[in-house]
């Protein structure tokens, strides 16, 4: 049974259709990739799943409980955490405080120690005392992942987490994702780095113009004609 179920989700902004009846299942303990060209609706779908935007139609369920009208902070308590394409760190706080806030809100004992351990785990331990607003994009993304992990999520939604990381850092990040999966965490990953996505994902959904145009294992998706058309413009 899927941990996260998205059924017939549609999202319209005045005349623009961002999502047009998306269905998506994320199985527990897996990494699910969500790919698609720019403007496909990936971030909008993340916003709908995390409660930042209410869908025009459709439902979102977490562990069989419908959460379509649940506020973002309650969804977090139900086990949904996310990162953002535009990172959204608390720029006035240090990296450690960014992670501590999340641990404190989740009422984790010894929040500061937890935060330090999580920064170490994502490979950003040396950044603990730096003001978040001064971090490079790649470092800030790692802190954002640590911050999301501090809420002890059941499912982690990652929006382009490897953007801004160099090749070595991306490989390390892939290893981190596999480690998180081994620990039982479920991940829904939006990423443009196809090597990373194909490398770590158990299942992939491809979104284009607000619709799921393909889904399956990485090798199935790679050879799907609709996917090739969406990315390369060829039939």
């Amino acid at each position, binding site marked *: 049974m899927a941990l996260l179920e998205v059924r017939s989700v549609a999202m319209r902004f005045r005349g623009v259709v961002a999502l047009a009846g998306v269905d998506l299942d994320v199985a527990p303990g897996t990494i699910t990739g969500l790919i698609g060209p720019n403007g496909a609706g990936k971030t909008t779908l993340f916003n709908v799943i995390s409660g930042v935007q209410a869908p025009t139609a459709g439902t979102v369920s977490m562990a069989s409980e419908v959460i379509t009208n649940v506020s973002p902070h309650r969804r977090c308590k139900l086990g949904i955490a996310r990162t953002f394409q535009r990172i959204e760190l608390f*720029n006035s706080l240090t990296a450690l405080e960014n992670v501590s806030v999340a641990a*404190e*809100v989740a009422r984790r004992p010894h929040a500061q120690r937890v935060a330090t351990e999580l920064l170490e785990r994502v490979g950003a331990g040396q950044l603990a005392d730096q003001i978040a607003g001064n971090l490079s994009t790649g470092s800030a993304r790692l802190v954002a992942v640590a911050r999301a992990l501090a809420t002890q999520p059941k499912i982690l939604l990652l929006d382009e987490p490897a953007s801004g990381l160099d090749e070595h850092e991306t490989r390390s990040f892939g290893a981190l994702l596999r480690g998180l999966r081994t620990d039982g965490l479920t991940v829904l990953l939006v990423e443009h780095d196809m090597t990373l996505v194909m490398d770590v994902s158990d299942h992939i959904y491809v979104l284009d113009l607000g619709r799921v145009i393909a889904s399956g294992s990485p090798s199935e998706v790679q050879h799907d004609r609709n996917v090739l058309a969406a990315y390369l413009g060829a039939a």
Partner: protein
Amino acid sequence: MESFIAFTIIGLSTGAIYALAASGLVLTYTTSGIFNLSHGATGMLSAFVYWQMRFDWGWPAPFALVITVFILCPLYGALVEKFLMRGLRDTSEVVRLSVTVALLVAAIGLANWVWPPGNYVAFQALFEGHAVDVFGYNLSWQKIITAGCAIAVAIGLRYLLFRTRAGVAMRAVVDDRSLLEINGGRPDRISMLAWAGSASLAGLAGILLAGEQQLNIVPLTLLVVNAYAAAIFGRLRSLPFTFLGAVILGLVDSYYVAYSGDSWFPRTVFGFDLTGLRGSVPTIALFVVLLVLPHTRLHAGALKLRERTKVPAWSTSLLGAALLVTATVAVSGMLARSDALYLVDAFFFAICALSLVPLTGYAGQMSLAPLTFAGLGAMLMAHLPGHGNVLTLVGAVLIVAVIGAVIALPALRVQGIYLALATGAFAIFTSNLIFSQGRAFPNAGLTVPTLGIPGLDLSTPRARLVELSVAYAILGLGVVALRRSRLGRRLIALKDSPIAAATLGVNLTLTKVVAFAISAGIAAFAGALFGASVTTDRFTFAAGLPVVLLAVVGGVGAVSGALFGGISLGANAVLANLVPSLRKATQVLPGLVGIGLGRDPDGVTAQIAPWYAPLKGRWRLIAGCVGAGVAVWALTSLSVLSHWQFGFTMITLTVAVVPNLPAVIDSPPGRRAVAAGWLAVPLVLSAVVDWDSVITSSGWLVAVLVAMVVVFGAGTRRILAGRPSKISESPDEVGLRRALLPTEVAQIDRTLGVVF
């Protein structure tokens, strides 16, 4: 029926004026993202300028009108955009709003300075005495002109924004300024055009409104309240809905005037006097509109603002609190009663400003009503049982905190400017309908009992001064503790990225309510501890604006910033008293100080703090400086030094000598001796010269003091720095150590072959 038609026509005319003003607000907001709270002040100033030309100098009306509305107003708007608003990029909404508040405060001060109240003849409406008969009602030409102007503006703006290149560019500026620039647009020029047009509309509205209501500085300035209620009706975007909102407001106001005198209209509701209801109509309308507005969507895109909120260290905070109380106790003994009362006022304002630190500085939520909560605190302290004992104080603070939370609830569905406007509306509503109640403030005033602590008499000005300084120190330490707590980090998270905070499990509504409650509670302390007679005009919306402004100027993210804000307001009053010739200038001063915020959005204290940073960890030096201060105080107490000598010595010691001491000590021996000698001169002069005998004018005394601080403070730094080296600049460093000159840019362009 005839009276209904007549009042409908009057209402439509009034609505047309609101529409003119509101459309100007929408124009600047949609093109620059800045909500101009000084819009009404622009209208007020232009009404006075028109009056000056038309009625004082006797110029023909059309000539005066054209000069004011089509030359001076656009020029003013363009200059404001170029020199103030353009510098506000990458600043928070709080700073942007505060700069417009600064303009408003400066405009009120300027109007009071140039046109003192009561010194002018009546303002006549356009074509006074000319009217046409409509359904038996004499419709004045001014009303016809007003309606005509509103219709013309509505059509003109619609055409401008949707049918002209300039209009399309104006809308593009809001969507993406840099993209417009890349595509050949000139966003700065477009913004300037919008501000110029907006100022013209404000000017026209101000002149028309003055024709209806006469010249009056504050009511004309607060025209903006009616206008922003209308603008919010159009959600600051839609001109048709803005006009509709303005017309509804005009009609409601007119019908209220028409029928509030009828027998069926209630004078009181449950003993609650409704006299002030008319002035509250726009604020009530604003609240209603806010209630029906859709919930503000969370947006991604945390800004990398120029402001930074530092975590205050306990050691610095405790030292600061101890120094504040000690200095107040030391100085209070030397002050005359009137000066002590000024300082009491300063601490009153400082506590009000402190209430904004958790709310605005930490949580990023703007409030324009700190004095309203202080007023409620004073009212409850006077009326609750116990007559001013500690339990009465606690009760008053808790009740006001709950009121703050409850009032905030409807406004919390929205963010940013809407929230600020809602608090402004609450301030006006409370002044008009709560503080005006005879039971609350008999004869518009009441006596707030002094805090009853067994064994302590807190009724004298000196005792009140010390009491308020202790209160500030304790509340300040409480605010520091808040910032260092989990809640404090959540407040910062709420300010930095509401969307991230929400998805990490932070309940935004609850956090904002708590922030509002804490803020209201702190402000209530200020009112409840006032301990003397107080009138309602101290707690008005207009009176509160300088407090908000100077809190932001001081640095609203820091306890020291709030103290700076309060003390500045108190010092301004002292300066006005000390140097009567500067009294008028002091009315403009807070506004002028606030206008500079765009350059330093962190506030003044954040700029001053680095001066004293070299003292960090040098405890012996700090102890020496404190010892010197104590010695000066002791010599004054023993009447060795006069009060002027005390003031001169302490100010030169604090501002010119102490910041330079670490550098003087660390410099090479030869230079050290020269610098130390140079620094000793102002101290000796301050302590030896019998200042008020040598210079009889208080104004010159203040000027000499300022000159001494500048000459000897900056001079020491120059001595320590030595001669500037004449080593030629490395080409690698061009553009890094300093900004490139236009000639250098041109040279680089030529070298690179870039041709425009």
